[in-house]
């Protein structure tokens, strides 16, 4: 029986539920596992690690003196989702992504939702992620979030919550793809036995999806390029991986310039225009002429080309307003406002520390809550109350009191667990899930599954790779 014991809460384990019976999606895997030799799996784990190293699937950790390249720990036990669970999830995700795009279009046009009083105006007007320059702009194809990642957590057999929306540049999709590749190499027999839905068509779908949003000035087949800050960026592996898989050029700001009203890349034979840019740099760094003047990562003048219909920028500038953590608590209203339906996937209850009565409650219950920075990401700068020392809580309290607007708080969720393989057998660890969603004028494509992140330390609820979290292959079973 696998039952979490952290802080007296018991956790739902996705393999064994609350009891000792193996849940049906895991049945075949479990039978296979029981017949396997643990030493063989141990060996395979080491092989996988060597494979990740030679392939260079590493990431750089920020805030460390040396540009240290690390592996994200990979666990060989898959996270398995049944066909019916996935149907339910994907309907909810699709609804959410449609609402996000409708919201973005509205916010940058008539702002009906603000007029209707469903979202407070100052939440938008005072928000750094809001780009006034996008007002009245129609991005090519009408798409704002070409790529999004919706973070989902589970707390029971039928309880799924959206923890976070990532509408800027969600990362991790290369791990989703390489994890599957690794599993296929290590345990081919499993895939012959169990019907798992494919994920490998993601890069092709991404290319199609981006090409479908080509700008008006595009002639013929759209040229797609991936814009990276460079080899020292923590997600560089992913940038080069995606460019490689799509057959697109991987460019940096200094490879590009504006030539005759188009964004063009410097090739060995001169400048050639590009049509769609999948940028992995933040809005602020896109254009030193129009945004941060000190930025070397972007392209001077790209903004003007964008406005004139000469380039598609994916995701569109200004999408950050939709994944802001302060806005998150309004998502159920946003979904209802634009789709006329109730949200299929619920939000995690959230206290907005900017509101005095919410703040008071948060301060009273600090030791039991999770508090996050509104603009933070990557698990940096957050407080996990139940895991924090008295001193840490006191320090956080002072930060919170000094700048309540900068924080939101949520109950500490009893995140579901999935077993990982350890030297002493299977052991439950907390997980979340990031499905990747593509949007184009032709519709929404969700790759079955997504990236499962897993806290490798016993009892830990923080799954972020920057905090030592690992990943698992995610299986969505065929019907």
């Amino acid at each position, binding site marked *: 029986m696998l039952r979490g014991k952290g802080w007296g809460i018991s956790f739902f384990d996705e393999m064994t539920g609350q009891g000792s019976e193996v849940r049906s999606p895991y049945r075949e895997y479990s039978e296979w596992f029981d017949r396997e030799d643990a030493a063989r799996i141990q060996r395979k784990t080491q092989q996988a690690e060597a494979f990740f*190293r*030679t392939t260079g699937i590493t990431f750089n950790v920020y805030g460390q003196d040396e540009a240290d390249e690390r592996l994200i720990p990979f666990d060989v036990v898959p996270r398995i989702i049944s066909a019916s669970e996935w149907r339910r999830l994907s309907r909810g995700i699709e609804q959410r992504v449609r609402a996000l795009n409708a919201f973005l279009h509205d916010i940058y046009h008539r702002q009906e939702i603000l007029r209707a009083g469903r979202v407070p105006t100052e939440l938008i007007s005072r928000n750094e992620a809001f780009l006034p320059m996008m007002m009245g702009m129609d991005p090519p194809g009408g798409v704002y979030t070409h790529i999004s990642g919706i973070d989902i957590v589970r707390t029971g057999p039928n309880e799924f919550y959206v923890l976070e929306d990532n509408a800027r540049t969600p990362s991790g999709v290369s791990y989703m793809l390489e994890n599957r590749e690794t599993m296929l190499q290590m345990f081919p027999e499993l895939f012959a036995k169990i019907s798992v839905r494919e994920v490998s068509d993601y890069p092709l779908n991404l290319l199609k999806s981006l090409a479908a949003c080509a700008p008006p000035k595009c002639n013929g087949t759209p040229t797609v390029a991936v814009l990276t800050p460079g080899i020292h960026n923590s997600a560089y592996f992913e940038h080069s991986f995606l460019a490689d898989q799509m057959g697109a050029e991987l460019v940096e700001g200094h*490879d590009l310039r504006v030539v005759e009203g188009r964004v063009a890349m410097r*090739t*060995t034979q001169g400048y050639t225009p590009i049509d769609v840019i999948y940028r992995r740099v933040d809005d602020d760094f896109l254009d030193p002429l129009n945004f941060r003047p000190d930025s070397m990562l972007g392209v001077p003048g790209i903004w003007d080309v964008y406005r004139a219909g000469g380039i598609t920028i994916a995701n569109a500038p200004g999408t950050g307003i939709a994944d802001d953590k302060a806005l998150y608590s309004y998502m159920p209203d946003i979904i209802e406002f634009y789709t006329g339906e109730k949200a299929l996937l619920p939000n995690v209850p959230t206290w907005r520390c900017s509101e005095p009565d919410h703040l008071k409650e948060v301060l009273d219950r600090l030791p039991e809550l999770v508090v996050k920075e509104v603009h933070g990401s990557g698990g940096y700068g957050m407080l996990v109350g139940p895991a924090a020392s008295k001193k840490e809580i006191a320090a956080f309290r002072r930060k919170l009191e000094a700048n309540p607007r900068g924080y939101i708080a949520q109950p500490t969720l009893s995140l579901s667990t999935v077993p990982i393989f350890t030297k002493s057998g299977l052991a439950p660890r907390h997980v979340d899930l990031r499905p990747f969603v593509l949007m184009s004028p032709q519709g929404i494509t969700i790759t079955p599954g997504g990236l499962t992140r897993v806290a490798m330390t016993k009892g830990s609820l923080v799954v972020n790779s920057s905090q030592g979290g690992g990943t698992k292959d995610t299986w969505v079973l065929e019907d």
Partner: protein
Amino acid sequence: MLGKTAGSLYWMARYLERSENNARLIDAGFRIALTRSSTAEAEWRSVLVTAGQNYAFQQTHQDYSSQRVVDFMLRDPANPSSILSVVKQARDNARTARTYLTREVWEAVNTSWMTLGALLKRQVREDDLPDVLAAIRQQSALVRGAFSGTMLRNDGYNFARIGTFLERADNTARILDVKYYLLLPSVAHIGSSIDNVQWETILRSVSAHRAYHWLYGTEISALKIAEFLILYKQMPRSLAFCCEQMNDNLDLLQRTYGEETDAVRMGSSICRDRLSRPIQSIFDGGLHEFITDFLRANAALAQQVERDYRFVE
């Protein structure tokens, strides 16, 4: 292809070639230092000069002991030309050009960086040095094998090859530049024959002492060694061989792009004006002058390639 990517392929190849050449120079220096302790300091000094690292070495070191020089050349992070630094730069360039490399080439470069990083983590003991140098040569052979076996023969391939041969020609010419005085006829006259150990060092620095004997038998003459290293086209480290390869690749680029660049013209002029003549005429015009002029022309060609193919803006 992107100019930057072309540049990364070119530099990746140059750095890989450089690491192998430096390993060979260390090997040759080490041999002579073992057998002739009296001239060891002078030998190490000339090894450092050949590798273009003497200035940097003098900034932080007082004496030329084997241990210090070897450590500096192998693994000093403050030395941008140490093998460890050079392999890291090769790998950084490979990462930048990752989308143009086959998985095999990338993995070979990455593995080489990891393997040498582990081998050179600590100072290498004198009796481990031959193994370490062998490992460096082996890693470089693995990269070369993957490159030749799996890469498309397109413009990217040509840029990498041009990098390899510019670097190699530079290396061979530098070896001659530092040792040319040994090959001057006057010295040969005075000392009846040139110093056995010295000429062997030169040949070892280009991994060609066996090949030389195959070709010329036991006869050791300054003229023959110079001819072998400068003009002999079957020798893969001779200036003539390197130039021919450079020109072949420049020609292929010209055919692909349909454009005759200054680099193409400069490349063929090096072959035609400098290397299409008998060795005696090179000696008559002055060996030192010849080498100095060649190094200058080779460096100018390298700059022209960067400009013509837009490696940087």
